[in-house]
Structures are given as C-alpha cells and as structure tokens.
C-alpha cells in the first residue's frame, strides 16, 4: 500500500519547514531537503516508533493514571516481544508478530494530564511536537478526553482514549482521529436497566444526585431513560457541585422525598464521598413505600470502590471490565499484569492496554503509520479475545461495542482486590444504539 495518498499540501510543507526549524534550531535547516521529507507529522524515520501516554500523575486520579501507565508499559513490552505476550496470544484476528510494529521497535513517552484540559493538551502537544509521538492514549476523565481528542484531530495524530465514559466523546464531540474502547453512559443505562428491574421491581421512585457537569448530565439522562422505560418514576434530579466534599445537604432531602432508590451519578472522589455519606444517613437500612431503600452507582471502578471501603458492598453498578472475567483474553492479561506488578489491573489499565494493541495491530494491517490509513483500518474492525467477547469498532462514531458488565459490590471479598462481583455480562446487542442519536461529526481523514 502506498504511504502517500496525495502529495503534501503547501501548508504541510510550511509546517514541516517550521518544525525543521525548531528541531534543528538553526535557520539553514530550512534549505535542506530533509524538512520536506515528511509527508505526515512525525512519520517514524528511524527504527523506532514513539507512542505518547498521557495520564493523570498528579491530582485525584493519580492512582488510576499510574495503573494506566503500568498497562501501557506492559503493552509496549508485549508489542516488542518481551514478557509473556499477554493478550497478543489471544487476540483474534491478529497481525502483530511481537517484533514491534511494522518492524520498528515501540518506544514511548509519558506526560501528566493533571486531569485538566489545558494541562492535558499541553502535555499531548509536547509529546507530539517535541518527542515525535505518533499516537496519544490515556486519560481518566471525559473532559480531558474530549479536549485532547480535539487537539489530536487538529494535529493529525491518532488518539486512543483511555477511561472516558461520557456519551459526548463518541457522540457530540466525536472526531475522526479519536477512538474509544471504553463503554459510555448510554451503555451503562442500557445494561443496568433490566437488572435493576429484575432486582428491585418495576414500581420504584428514583432520586438522582448528579455531578453538575457534562458527564454527570449524560449519565443522569441515560439512567433516567433506562429506568423510566422499566416503569420507574423519577422523584427528583439534583445537581451537585463537583468536588463538593460533603454531600450531606444534598442527601438529607432524599430522606423524606418518598423516593426508594438513590442513583448517584458521581465518579471518582465525588462517588466515594457521596456513597459513604449516603450510607451513614442510614439510607440502606430504610424502608420506603414498603420496599428496601436501594442505592445505585451507575459507573463503578475497582480503584474507587477501594476508596468507599465497606460501603460498596451490595451496591449495583456497571463496569467496562473486571479482572475476575474468565475469558482467555482477560485471564492472559491479568496473568501477565499480576505477574509483573503483584496485583490485578483496573479497568482503566485494561482499556489502555487494549487500545495500544489495537492501534499497533491497525498499523500492521494498514502497512503504514500514515494516520488516515490507520484510521480506516480501525474503523469497522471486528475482533475478539481481548475481554468482553466479540467487539466491533463502529465506523460511524469510533465507539467500541462489546458486552457490558453489571457488577455488585462484593459482600465477602476473598482479597483486597476482590471488590466487585460480575452479576451479568450484558450482551452487546442489548447496549447498541443508533449513532445518529448523539449527533456530532467525525471530520475529515486528511488534516492539514
């Protein structure tokens, strides 16, 4: 396959020249031809290809970021043929040979997103402009994912999103250069809904506490749609400030609202705090309308479950992946991760690992690192053996479709990592939707 679809545009050349000026630092470089040799940004010239891993290293999600970084390192090892190969052994179909990507050794650079859009973009730009990163991956919040994805579209660099759960990432704000393996709020609702119906009945009144920003709203909307479809009523939806810390003033009104389910559309520290505090208010010991009061946390992660401690027990929620899954891919990944680090990977680590492998595989299949070709190789790709069963990367919105886990806080954990029980692996067909419902526009393959 040709590496060049069309000749370099004038702007591209100018940019290349400018980049050359920067890299070499001195004016005469402008006259040398090497500056004109790049048909696309950061085309790997030597025998390595550089990937950029952009994760939160400071701030509340630093532990999640650290876990993502471990997964990235593991993925790089496996791609370069070191270690036990992990999911390379289970991935179906597979073009990777454990000898790097397209014969080039995989190297990586890292950066700190600080879970802030500006810092994340600055860090991504550094990896692209200075370190020559060909692909950016990672992240632990939707705001950051959308911001970095937008940047990557402008820069013509592929972005393989890490943990981002908002519908917007592959909906309103979807981009041609952005891909998401993680599930989203809509899928959480679609998977949780039926289970909630089975467990708690169809005659319920739900009270929503929602983090007051875009992810919270999409989560609330998806949960409302899913529960109201069951026949539940929505008693009240209340927005809470992000990082409120103490949620007591939002929890007390729940007590006498006549609601019998509390849905916490919170993530991270907000979730840990609001869940801990809601349970202290005795909500779970309450009887309302003749039924046991229930709390639901639509998005769970094991790391955050650790923060909530005992309080997580028996609480229903959804997850992208959990290390207790028994399929061959998951087991292979858990095995090599656990052997290297001594504990099992989080779902953030899983999605980052898979994303890296998928990108590498797509390059191998496209036969080039040229982003538009790699994008085409990823779009509409079907694969299996990487956890969650057969998976489809939908071309229309770059969202992966796979089984979604409904999980429950483990009542009797056998270890400090055994916090979530998989209640149900909701089949992919049940969580699929029409990409048109969230709008958005992917944009072009070719960027200047």
């Amino acid at each position, binding site marked *: 396959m040709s590496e060049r679809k069309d000749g370099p545009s004038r702007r591209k050349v100018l940019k290349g020249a400018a980049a050359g000026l920067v890299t070499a630092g001195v004016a005469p470089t402008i006259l040398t031809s090497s500056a004109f040799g790049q048909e696309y940004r950061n085309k790997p010239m030597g025998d390595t290809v550089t990937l950029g891993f952009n994760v939160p290293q400071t*701030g*509340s*999600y*630093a*532990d999640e970021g*650290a876990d993502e970084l471990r997964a990235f390192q593991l993925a790089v090892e496996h791609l370069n043929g070191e270690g036990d190969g992990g999911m390379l052994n289970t991935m179906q179909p597979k073009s990777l040979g454990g000898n790097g990507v397209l014969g080039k050794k995989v190297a990586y650079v890292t950066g700190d997103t600080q879970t802030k859009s500006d810092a994340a973009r600055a860090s991504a730009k550094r990896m692209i402009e200075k370190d020559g990163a060909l692909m950016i991956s990672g992240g632990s919040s939707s705001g950051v994912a959308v911001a970095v994805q937008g940047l990557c579209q402008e820069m013509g660099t592929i972005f393989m999103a890490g943990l981002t759960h908002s519908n917007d990432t592959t909906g309103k704000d979807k981009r041609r250069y952005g891909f998401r393996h993680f599930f989203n709020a809509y899928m959480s609702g679609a998977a949780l809904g039926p289970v909630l119906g089975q467990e708690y009945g169809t005659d319920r009144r739900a009270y929503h506490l929602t983090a*007051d920003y875009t992810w919270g709203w999409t989560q609330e909307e998806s949960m409302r749609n899913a529960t109201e479809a069951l026949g539940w009523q929505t008693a*009240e939806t*209340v*927005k809470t*400030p992000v*990082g409120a*810390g*103490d949620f*007591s*003033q*939002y929890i*007390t*009104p729940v*007590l*006498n609202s006549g609601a019998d389910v509390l849905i916490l559309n919170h993530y991270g*520290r907000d979730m*840990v*705090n609001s869940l*801990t*505090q809601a349970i*202290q*208010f*005795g909500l779970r*010991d*309450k009887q309302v309308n003749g039924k046991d009061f229930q709390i639901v946390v639509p998005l769970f992660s094991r*790391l*955050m479950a*650790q*923060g*909530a*401690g*005992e*309080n997580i027990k028996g609480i229903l929620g959804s997850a992208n992946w959990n*290390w*207790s899954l028994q399929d061959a891919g998951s*087991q292979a990944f*858990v*095995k*090599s*991760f*656990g*052997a290297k680090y*001594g504990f*099992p990977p989080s779902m953030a680590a899983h999605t980052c690992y898979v994303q890296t492998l998928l990108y590498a595989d797509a390059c191998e299949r496209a036969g080039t690192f040229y982003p538009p070709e790699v994008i085409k190789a990823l779009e509409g790709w079907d694969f299996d053996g990487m956890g969650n069963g057969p998976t489809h990367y939908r071309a229309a919105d770059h969202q992966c479709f796979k089984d979604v886990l409904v999980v429950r806080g483990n009542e009797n954990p*056998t*270890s*400090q990592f055994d916090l979530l029980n998989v209640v149900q692996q909701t089949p992919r067909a049940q969580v699929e939707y029409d990409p048109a419902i969230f709008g958005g526009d992917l944009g072009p393959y070719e960027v200047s």
Partner: protein
Amino acid sequence: MDAIFLQFLNGLDKGGAYALIALGLTLVFGTLGVVNFAHGALFMLGAFCAVTVRKILTLEMIATDPEKVTAWGTPLEIRTPYVEAWFGDFGSFMVDYSVPFSILLAIPVMLVIGIVMERGLIKHFYRRPHAEQILVTFGLAIVLQEIIKHYFGANPIPQPMPSVVGGAADIGAAMGMDPNVIVYPWWRLIYFAFSVVVIGAVFAFLQFTTFGMVVRAGMADRETVGLIGIDIDKRFTAMFGLAAVVAGMAGVMYTPLLPPDYHLGMDFLVLSFVVVVVGGMGSLPGAVAAGFLLGILQSLASMTEIKAIIPGIDQIIIYLVAVIILLVRPRGLLGRRGVMES
C-alpha cells in the same frame, strides 16, 4: 419544615467543621502574623494520622495457601490482622475504634510537626511580606502532600467509624415526632459536639490561663509584651503547635465522613481562608461565627426549592456571602481595624 430543620442540622455540622479548621488558621495569624497556606496540609496530616493508626492496627500476617493460586499465578495469600491474632476480640475492638484512638497519636504528632514547622521555617518569616509567607507555606504544603502521596497513594482511603455509631440517630422520634422523619448520622452529631468542645477548650485556655492571657496580649500588641520581658516567642511557638493540633484533630475526626486522600488539605484551604476573612482576620469568635454562618447558609442554599429560584446558587453561596459581608462590614464580622490592610 422537616427539610429546613434537617438542613439546619447539616449547617451546624458543616459549620462546626469550618469553624474548627478556621480556628487554627486565625490563631496563627493573630499571634504570629503569618498567613499560613500550609494550614490545610496540617488538617490533611491529621487525617493521615488516622490512616496510619488504622494501617498499623490492620497490619496483616500473610500466609500462603499452597492449594489455591491467584489469577496471575501466585499462591493465594491468607491475611489475618496481627492485632486480631494476638488480642482476639480486644484486637477487633481496637480496629473498630481506630479513629477515636488516632486522636491519641495525632495530638503529640501534630504538636511536634507544628513546633518543627514553626522553629524550622515559619519563624524566619515573621517580618517578611505576606506574599513571601504565602509562597513558602504554599511550597511547604505541596511538599507535605507529595510526601503523603508517595507513601499512601492518591486514592482516598476509607476510615470507618466505630460500628456502634455507624448508623443514624432518629432525632425526630426522640423529640416526640414521627419516627424516621428526622434522622441524622451519629458521627455527624459527634463531630458537631466534638467541634464545640474543642472550640470551647481553646477559648477557655486563652481566657483563663496565664499563658493564654499573655498570648492574647501578644496578639493585641506584640512589642509591648516583648518589652515587659516576657519571652513571647516561645509562647507563639506553642500557639503554632496548638493550631496544628486543632487542625490535626479536626482532620482525624473528619475521616469517617470524607475518606482522606493527599489532596484533602487543598480543598479546605480556600474555604478556611474565606471563613477566617469573613469572620475578621485574627478574630477567634469571628472565625467561629463565620464558620457556622457559612455552613448553615450553604446547607439552606442547596435546597431544591431555593435552587429552583436561583439556579446554581449552591455553587457560589459561600463566595457570594463573603462578598456581601466584606462590602457591608469592611473587616469581616468581628475583625479589628488595621489588621492585614497594609
């Protein structure tokens, strides 16, 4: 009505926390004239005293089960806490009560931290501009929290309260109303009572001991007190230690409500400054009054009925109140003239 009453309870409980945190800050400012941006970090260190105690109490004996293996191929570990193995029921009692126990550790530890901080760093900044005090204490706060992050990670670490007080108290029923209408978590009531006791103790200490009298005189006029031959510096060091202890105890007791992480202090920093300034820089009663006022207003502003009238009011209420109070009362509720206006 019930809703308002409950929000009022919330306000008291929040206000107690705010007042407790602001108290130490204003104490340090009033006595030493130092703007201490590391005060939030002291609160956080207190919280991590509780984490440490619990960590020690739950240190586990690790035996491996040769029969079973983990998903990643290592033998399954069987973990038993030492204290339970050694002390049986008393051991689990200690684990259960780890948070109150932690206060015993927090008092000496925070005292030492406070004194070391003051003697080692802060005392060199008494005569320096406030801007430099801000930079040095902010830097110190970052260093302290990064050290905590290095050892404890960034994730919040849950600290359960003793199981006896784990649930909620039915205050309504106790007051002869319908049961299950006004219920409030025991621990929050305890926290409120605790804050009242600590605030009372600090006031009594300053009011009725010679030490306190000298310090109060020093707050009013440092030079004169120095002139009459009292070594005020030593007492001020002790005051810094006291402020650290108060912040630390507030941190310990707060852990069951808010699983602590290394960043906890920064979240409270801005808030505690707002409380102190609204109360009036250097005024202890002002800080307490402002703490309760802001706590109660914040709780009431979060009611759905009020948010329906003014959307987003709960997001800004604290700052809005601060602006209004400072415009109406130039030096906060109970501030003195000439403090921090240079």
